[in-house]
């Protein structure tokens, strides 16, 4: 990880009248793939737009590649952006469109043409490059969206919900491409998503936002461990089992036909085994389980009073 962050937000706030989109948020983003996770309205897109210099923050500072984001017209030639929503001209073919986008990013015409072809090859669209984009499938369109974001070889690329609307296979291919974007192309990525599984499978670090506030920032591994629980269901003696776990310092939370316990490491299973024996409870189900994202936000909201 480089010492100087590629992106940095310090006490960043953005208000739209009385609506607070970002509230005193601070974080740094370094080289690698970083996920920004949050439900709709969490402030993810607002943060991205501030970094792209498209919105001016109400207070605080946002720097991108060492420059003030609010005066970053020039820096934008080193940034890429893949929007969530449709953005492709149906009448143009992919090769012409990418060449044009590379030129608008400042690449000379001949270089733009070569890089458009190369980028389409790397994103698996080389054979289809002269077909009008309007005739592409959803998966192909998502690839073109990614291709236009990296055609000018940016230092950093923002991907806004890149797997939206994709079937499971298309989603897997897109996540592979995102991993490749950093590992093979050397382009750092900020992946905005509301799907924990996308972030977990793709990112090194994670930023979790809720209601315009920062809930969590750190390594993905640490975060996913914190999220893990164990679901237990027994035929009888559930109350005795809960008590036995309690004596071992393990709290249980009722959930459906059974209950869950926090399970950050493997040793909890040994303790469950001992408690089941002690309570003489016939075990029906014992399974690792994850907090749903909404549940996690609610939990963090309660424990941190909604602020980090």
């Amino acid at each position, binding site marked *: 990880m480089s010492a100087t962050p590629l992106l940095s937000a310090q006490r960043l706030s953005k208000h739209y009248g009385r609506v607070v989109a970002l509230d005193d948020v601070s974080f740094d983003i370094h080289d690698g793939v970083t996920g920004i996770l949050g439900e709709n309205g969490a402030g993810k897109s607002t943060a991205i*737009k501030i970094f*792209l210099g*498209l*919105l001016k923050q109400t207070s605080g500072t946002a720097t991108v590649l060492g420059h003030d984001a609010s005066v970053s*017209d*020039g820096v*934008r*030639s*080193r*940034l890429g*952006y893949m*929007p969530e*929503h*449709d*953005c*492709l*001209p*149906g*009448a*143009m*073919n992919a090769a*012409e469109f990418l060449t*044009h*986008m590379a*030129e*608008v*990013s*400042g*690449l*000379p015409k001949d*270089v733009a043409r070569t*890089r458009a072809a*190369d980028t389409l090859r*790397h994103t698996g669209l080389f054979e289809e490059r002269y077909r*009008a984009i309007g005739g592409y499938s959803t998966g192909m369109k998502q690839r073109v969206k990614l291709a*236009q974001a990296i055609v*000018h*070889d940016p230092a950093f690329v923002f991907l806004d919900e890149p797997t939206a609307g994709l079937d499971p296979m298309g989603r897997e291919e897109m996540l592979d491409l995102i991993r490749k974007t950093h590992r*093979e*192309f*050397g382009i750092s990525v900020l992946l905005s998503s509301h799907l924990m599984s996308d972030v977990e499978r793709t990112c090194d670090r994670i930023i979790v936002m809720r209601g315009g506030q920062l809930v969590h920032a750190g390594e993905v591994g640490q975060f996913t461990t914190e999220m893990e629980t164990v679901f237990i269901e027994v035929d009888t003696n559930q109350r005795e089992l809960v008590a036995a776990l309690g004596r071992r310092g393990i709290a249980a939370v009722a959930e459906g036909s059974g209950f869950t316990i926090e399970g950050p490491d493997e040793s909890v299973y040994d303790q469950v085994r001992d408690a089941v024996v002690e309570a003489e409870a016939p075990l029906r189900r014992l399974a690792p389980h994850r907090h749903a994202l909404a549940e996690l936000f609610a939990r963090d909201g309660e424990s941190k009073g909604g602020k980090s």
Partner: protein
Amino acid sequence: MSTDGHAARGGTVFDIGYQGYNGERRGRHYARDAVYQNGIRSALGLGRSTRAKALPWFFIIALSAIGLIMALIAGGVNRYIGAGTAQALNLPSHSDLYGIASIIMFAFGAVVAPELLCPDRRDGTINLYLVRPITGGDYILARWASFLTVMLVAAWMPQVILFLGLCLSDADPMKYVQTNWRDIPRFLLAGLVISAYVTTLAMLVASFTTRRAYAAVFLIGLFVISTPFTVGLASEMKNVTGQWISMFSLSNIPVHVNDLIFDDVSKITEDSPARRLAPWIRVAWCAGWTAVPGAILWQRYRRMTP
């Protein structure tokens, strides 16, 4: 053939993988130029389907055909009846061309100009421009300049054809050029005035909708309806009010300036009460109808964000 010899001729394909780019990155001016060139291609349907080419080229050919027909008639009359007969018969010439062709020019602007703005907003492509090293102001300026260029070519083409036709049909082409060379800067300037006016109005209307058809229908309606409506009203009032009402005939506004440039009266403005208003008023009116919509258009895009 030995195995070794065969191997020596064999080739190997290497996948050199992803290549980064460390070369020159040109700035905002270059990006604006790229948008400008793309706008010209879009307006003319270049690199698009045959359907996309049909409309712009139909209008360009139609405008050129007007110049050609006028040249053939005037040239034929001069050649076969006698030099100067066309002028003596007061046949339509350079000063009349924009008046005659104005409705086609407005239709061209109404139908083709929205192609440069509406699809970008409908498809969301505008978002991809705004995250690159240009601003919304750069984008709209480049698009406006693109269509102005196409419009200028369409406007000047029939005048050039007419001039060449008249010149070549004259018994002494060199003498014709020496006598009538002033027509060239006049039609260039008049073409610029009418092109800037049509481009700006058409683009402003297009900036309010994502549907090209809506913009085209609205603009054509505006140009077509404003003339009989204002003529009808103006004929009821013979005074200054009538003159000002006739100034709202949108298709006549740039033609009044054309008349001043050629120091002549076009066929379509000869009965217009607005012709009696002071020249500076007619020039300022046309400038205002170009500058104000231009300012609104620029303002609409200046602060646009995805």
